[in-house]
């Protein structure tokens, strides 16, 4: 498949990953500047997954993500402005400042959170899949979750239900090897996660999550299967280069391990591959960087200028605003 890569496609995937990387780097600065508060979980190192998977979906599909979801939101098409404004706690944020970094929502692009209960989004995705099946729709549900969720009962219940009922759900397990500070081998009796899907009679593949082309290819194949009403489990093997959150002193892993993974940084390896194939030159990269910088500068300016929700509106949206 990789042999068929076009220049447009290559640049699109690179652009997407670069947006996420630079966006996250800016978030770190803004966190230090106290513009962003609360928990902030960075996606740095894992960009190939969001870019590869979200690029394989159609507008009608629904995405349910986790609290480390800036990358999924950007790759799904949420504007950097609305995400940044959300993290600034502004009314023009995607969730009107009620969600923050962990709860990005955008109904217009089928982005259903931003779920910060590990495993809590999986039943939701199963429900969206059930609705699509009952509605005789072609649309599917895609659920992102970390390998930590595999230890949750909701993971097993959801996998079973989706398979039992033949629901169009793509389960994307982002295995970054650490559930906060707990290494996979310290929490799973069997660390081969794709094998777990076999217990639910579900097709499953392990994919190199540092290789955006491998992810994109696997996602396209998986999505095609899911649209036929067969759920699929993808284990996407990746690594987060940064701490779990801004509060994490990273006492649980060796610096050497992080450095070892950084050798496989998709933001280094993918541009190198594109150059090797003659699909990218210095001018392209500069232009992409400029575009991304301009987009993020604009997003920060927008977020800075945006107003806060009126305190009088605090209790809006606890219930729907309809006549009862």
């Amino acid at each position, binding site marked *: 498949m990789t042999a068929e890569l076009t220049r447009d496609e290559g640049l699109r995937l690179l652009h997407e990953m670069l947006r996420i990387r630079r966006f996250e780097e800016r978030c770190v600065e803004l966190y230090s500047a106290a513009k962003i508060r609360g928990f902030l979980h960075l996606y740095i190192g894992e960009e190939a997954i969001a870019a590869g998977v979200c690029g394989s979906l159609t507008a009608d599909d629904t995405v349910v993500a986790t609290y480390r979801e800036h990358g999924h939101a950007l790759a799904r098409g949420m504007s950097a402005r609305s995400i940044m404004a959300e993290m600034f706690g502004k009314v023009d944020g995607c*969730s009107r400042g009620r969600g923050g970094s962990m709860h990005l929502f955008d109904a217009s692009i089928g982005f259903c959170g931003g779920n910060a209960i590990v495993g809590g989004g999986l039943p939701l995705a199963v429900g969206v899949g059930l609705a699509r099946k009952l509605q005789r729709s072609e649309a599917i549900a895609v659920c992102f979750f970390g390998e930590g969720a595999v230890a949750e009962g909701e993971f097993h219940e959801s996998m079973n239900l989706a398979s039992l009922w033949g629901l169009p759900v793509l389960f994307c397990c982002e295995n970054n090897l650490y559930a906060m500070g707990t290494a996979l081998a310290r929490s799973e009796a069997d660390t081969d996660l794709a094998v777990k899907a076999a217990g639910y009679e579900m097709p499953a593949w392990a994919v190199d999550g540092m290789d955006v082309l491998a992810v994109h290819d696997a996602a396209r194949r998986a999505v095609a299967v899911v649209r036929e009403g067969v759920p699929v489990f993808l284990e996407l093997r990746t690594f987060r280069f940064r701490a779990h959150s801004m509060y994490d002193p990273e006492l649980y892993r060796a610096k050497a391990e992080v450095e070892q993974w950084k050798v496989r940084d998709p933001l280094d390896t993918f541009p190198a591959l594109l150059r090797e194939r003659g699909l990218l030159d210095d001018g392209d990269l500069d232009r992409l960087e400029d575009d991304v910088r301009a987009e993020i500068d604009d997003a920060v300016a927008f977020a800075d200028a945006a107003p806060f929700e009126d305190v009088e509106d605090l209790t809006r949206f606890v219930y729907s605003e309809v006549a009862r």
Partner: protein
Amino acid sequence: MTALADAPTTVRCTYRDAVREAIREAMQRDPRVFLMGEDVGMYGGCFAVSRGLLDEFGPERIRDTPLSESAFVGAGIGAAVAGMRPIVEIMTVNFSLLALDQIMNNAATLLHMSGGQFAVPVVIRMTTGAGRQLAAQHSHSLEGWYAHIPGITVLAPATLEDARGMLWTALEDPDPVLVFENGALYNMEGELATDAGPVDIATARVRRGGTDVSLITYGGMLPRTLEAAEALAAEGVSAEVVDLRVLRPLDDATIIGSVVKTHRAVVVDEGWRSGSLSAEVSARITEQAFWDLDAPVARVCSAEVPMPYAKHLEEAALPQVPSILAAAREVLGG
């Protein structure tokens, strides 16, 4: 004319029949509605509520689930977000704790957390309450816990009319509604109007008018509270009985309106006393009608023990007519 005049205007049925009719009507009226839960199909429902519906509507819409409360409740929430109108049945309130994450962290929060974008029009029904010697993992009354949660509406139908009429209104609500059916009520029999239909899910109701004391209750405690009111009448005491019906949001106007009239209140709640719905009702009366009270608000609640199996112990743990009468006499000045 005679044919019309002779046509029955009521039908004799049970609370169980009324709930089943409500589900059937909802299924017929709206193709987005489906019922999902443990043993709702082939078995006919643990309490026989859904018996016959599988044959009528088929397995796609009367959907048996595995014993995966969190997944199927969460799936109901997801399906609601995606345009369906699911009725999710949980066998008992004790089992609902396995799905509490989905109810609390998703159903109740999604709309607000998304800045108004994702409403969750799901209805979750479950059995609650004791009285059937089912011991400490099938008998509790935890609806008061759920009434603590902003974002959901909590209903406790205690009459045939409400069992028949609350469901459709709940399904039309854009937000999550939890319906607590007290297991002791399923066999309650009575006359139900043949044209019984949707009822409001916003107000409390005075079930018996009175002037001397307000007995405020809901759900499985309503029949025995009415019985207590009858006994008080024989003693010359005019007791008003308020059926809360809706546990969240509470209808303060009806509660306070009654207390302002009678100047005395007894709250009868099958839940435990500490940190409870009865505490909430009592606090609101104190906040809003303190100067109208002629006596402190009294409460009759379940004993603070896990519900025991033995019949005499279970009866001793629950509010009974004599304990309601004793509380009423106390606030009336002994």
